[in-house]
């Protein structure tokens, strides 16, 4: 009796756990290297210097007193588990971002850095 019950439960678990698992990663451009930012000094560097080091920005925004160059990289990691009746799908997207602020003379005034792309992780949606 017990062995039949154990067999039934084992079969049920086996059937319900039949499925597949998918792990996916999507990287948009290469990660930003913080060491590249060292020669860029507010008050000295110009927009051309920034473009020379980091290339073309992802976005250029006109501000009230100059412009902003936005460099953005992203990493997305997705996890999917498909069982017989239940499926779980999760995705996490994190960014590396650098925003440079220039005055009207294209002189670098400030910049901010957020490097979070490496924090993207696989996981479940609960």
């Amino acid at each position, binding site marked *: 009796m017990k062995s039949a019950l154990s067999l039934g439960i084992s079969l049920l678990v086996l059937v319900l756990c039949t499925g597949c698992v998918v792990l996916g990663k999507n990287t948009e451009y290469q990660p930003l290297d913080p060491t590249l930012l060292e020669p860029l000094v507010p008050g000295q560097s110009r927009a051309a210097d920034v473009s020379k080091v980091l290339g073309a920005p992802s976005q250029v925004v006109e501000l009230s*007193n100059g412009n902003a160059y936005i460099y953005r990289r992203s990493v997305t990691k997705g996890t999917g588990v498909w069982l017989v009746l239940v499926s779980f799908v999760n995705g996490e997207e994190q960014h590396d971002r650098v925003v440079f602020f220039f005055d009207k003379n294209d002189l670098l005034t400030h910049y901010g850095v957020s490097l979070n792309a490496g924090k993207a992780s696989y996981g*479940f949606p609960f």
Partner: protein
Amino acid sequence: MNKVVVFRPTAERRHSIREAFPRAGDQEVAPDAPCLGDHPVSRVPSLREHDRVFQHLARLIATLALFLIPLLLSGCITYQLLGGVEGGEVSYPSDRLVVGKTTLGEVLVLLGAPDTVGRVDEGDLLIYQRAVLKRNQLSLGIPLADIWSLGIDLSAYGALVRYDRLVLLFTPEGILSGAAFEKSSDHPYWKAMTSNS
């Protein structure tokens, strides 16, 4: 030729079973009375043995049902839980962000690069944002689309995107002139989904 398997309990054993499980209509049997198994004839199963066989059969059917029902229902009943996160944690250090005093440079050092930069009438704005998605879906249906265009399909889902968002306004000179913060990822999913507002 089929072999007849004969159940041959001893007379003592049969007597002890009868004592342990008396039935209405049972008659006292002498211990030395010949039992049915003592004769080389095929035995007719008793009602109790029928019950036992039936119980075994029922257990077998239940086990098979547990095994087969999920397989048969796959594709007909599905539950999907989907989640997603975009962006890092957003916080509002209100004690370190002072309107009229904190500069753009200090904000960038404190919070890093914003998600969005824009221009408004009074100056510029920075937006820090994190989006959290959660979606539940339950589908009931018989996938007959390949056979019959009128396949039955019932599904219900609820998707909720919650944002943590910090908006900072600056004067053209780069002085913080306003701040707004919303942290909606703390709101319970089911409460938000069942709310009419």
